[in-house]
């Protein structure tokens, strides 16, 4: 295929095996797709593969059910608020610690990305106990704050990465031409680090929208998000509507990360 003519048979065999292994890994990673997506379109009320008859009844059920609609609304509100907060805070933090003269930048960076490393259950229990004292459990704002802590590290990382290739002389040039520090930021720095800010925002949105553990701890029935609704759905009565919800969630993730990939490709060009 792509092998030069002087390749020996054993090298060809090696190459084929490596290729087969890589394909197997990729298939394993996307295997759930092949089960969940067909099942969501099945007409049967129980999980059988292969699908005997296709229908959209579980999607109709999903969109006709107030509990699911309420959950999707909650998820959207929490995710949007988390995205706005995490993107703002994360961008500001990245700007600060990217300055060469910022004191203790390594330590502060480590603290900022700690929520990524700490086990999620610990974050959930910790937030539950801590927020309880302020009456923030079972409130939407409490969940937004907890999700913001989880999502901010991703913004810090993507924006810091973009800033490492940003030429600080652009900011200096803007200042020398008469721009105030804030207008230099909005008119020169921000447009040039936008790709990092947008990918950080996409990560933040995806994390909040998919997150289930913290949401389980922090929400009551009224604030239930989509992943929480799915989780309790699985426990109570197993029903293919969950498959429809999962497929929709998957579609959203695929759309978000396609946007991300397209943006990265444009930047490389």
């Amino acid at each position, binding site marked *: 295929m792509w092998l030069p003519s002087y390749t020996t048979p054993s090298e060809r065999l090696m190459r084929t095996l490596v290729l087969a292994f890589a394909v197997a890994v990729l298939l394993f990673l996307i295997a759930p797709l092949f089960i969940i997506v067909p099942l969501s379109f099945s007409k049967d009320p129980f999980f059988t593969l292969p699908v005997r008859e296709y229908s959209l009844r579980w999607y109709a059920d999903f969109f006709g059910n107030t509990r699911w609609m309420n959950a999707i609304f909650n998820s959207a509100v929490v995710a949007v608020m988390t995205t706005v907060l995490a993107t703002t805070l994360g961008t500001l933090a990245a700007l600060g610690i990217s300055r060469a003269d910022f004191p203790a930048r390594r330590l502060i960076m480590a603290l900022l990305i700690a929520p990524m490393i700490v086990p999620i259950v610990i974050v959930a229990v910790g937030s539950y106990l801590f927020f309880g004292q302020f009456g923030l459990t079972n409130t939407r704002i409490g969940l937004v704050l907890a999700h913001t802590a989880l999502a901010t590290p991703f913004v810090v990382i993507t924006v810091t990465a973009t800033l490492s290739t940003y030429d600080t002389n652009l900011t200096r040039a*803007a200042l020398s031409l008469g721009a*105030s520090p804030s*207008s230099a930021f909005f008119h020169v720095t921000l447009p040039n680090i936008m790709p990092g800010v947008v990918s950080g925002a996409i990560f933040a949105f995806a994390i909040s929208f998919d997150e289930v553990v913290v949401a389980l701890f922090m929400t009551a029935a009224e604030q239930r998000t989509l992943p929480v609704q799915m989780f309790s759905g699985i426990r109570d009565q197993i029903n293919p509507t969950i498959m429809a919800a999962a497929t929709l969630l998957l579609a959203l993730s695929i759309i978000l990360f396609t946007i991300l990939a397209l943006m990265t490709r444009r930047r490389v060009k």
Partner: protein
Amino acid sequence: MNFSQRMSLATDRPVDALVRFEDVKKSYDGINFVVKDLNLDVFRGEFLTMLGPSGSGKTTTLMMLGGFEQPTLGHILLDGKPVERLPPEKRNIGFVFQNYALFPHMTVAENVAFPLRYRGITGAAAKEKVRQALGRVSLEALGDRRPAQLSGGQQQRVALARSLVFEPALVLMDEPLGALDKQLRERMQIEIKQLQTSLGITMVYVTHDQSEALTMSDRIAVFHDGRIQQLSDPETLYNAPANRFVASFIGENNSLPCTLLGWEGGLAVVRMADGTTLKAAGANVSGMGVDMSISIRPENISLAGQRPHAGFNRFSGMARDVFFLGDHMRLSIEAFGGQLVTARIPALQARHFALGTDVAFECSISECRLLEE
């Protein structure tokens, strides 16, 4: 206008200095000083170059003037007013950066219009100014392009237009031609100089390229180790370097150790390492001593005739290597007991001798300069 003349005529420091550095010191870590006791006046309408190797303090000095760094001690006066605490956006100084720093998300015209919006100039008035500024650098046709679509030389011109469009009295340039190839660099040197003269702006220019400094400047400040080693017009700098550093940094120079024996009719009499005595001009030298050197430029050494000339030093040496360089030959001569001396000799003259034999050379006494450390 001749600035060196104005300097020498003035009894005190002239009052029309646009920029004045007063005992400026700068340290980043509180231990090592990058700039030490800087005192410098930049006159109105002058093209002043700060020349020096990297780490000599020239760029730090420029950044302090631009407002991007604060002096640790001392004052910087702009138009007579101290500006150390004034942020860059309030200084009204044009700045051209080494890598141009054009805004990649804006067109050329938007880049040039950028400083105008902070000065309340918008609409048709701004358009007209942008057109004029781009015209000055012959880029009228490229206003709609993005910086990335321009060549290095064109980007340099846009940066120049952007720094001039708001008519600042002072423009600072940090090695603006460093990234360009030799031919383009030489053309841009002339263009920048012409713009500066025709607009009557004051320019402070930083470079490590001595030929660039000699071509463009009214005065050159040679920086080394955080201090100005010499401040003078290009000709004086080249012909009468103040010390060994300046002599070796500006142009090519033979620096030969010697001992000062005494003075004879205003000229120094020195003994070279092998005992040869030479005469040398030594206007800047005060005491006596052993740790001295004479500096001779390669182009001032020539093949000696049969009889000695008055006013010339004569010495013998053995030609070790000859390199043909078109209009001249470059000789490596072993003289004064094993020292290598470089000479530039017109190609025609160089025919008359053979490698490895002793040959007589001569050099005008006024071109042999005695320098202290």
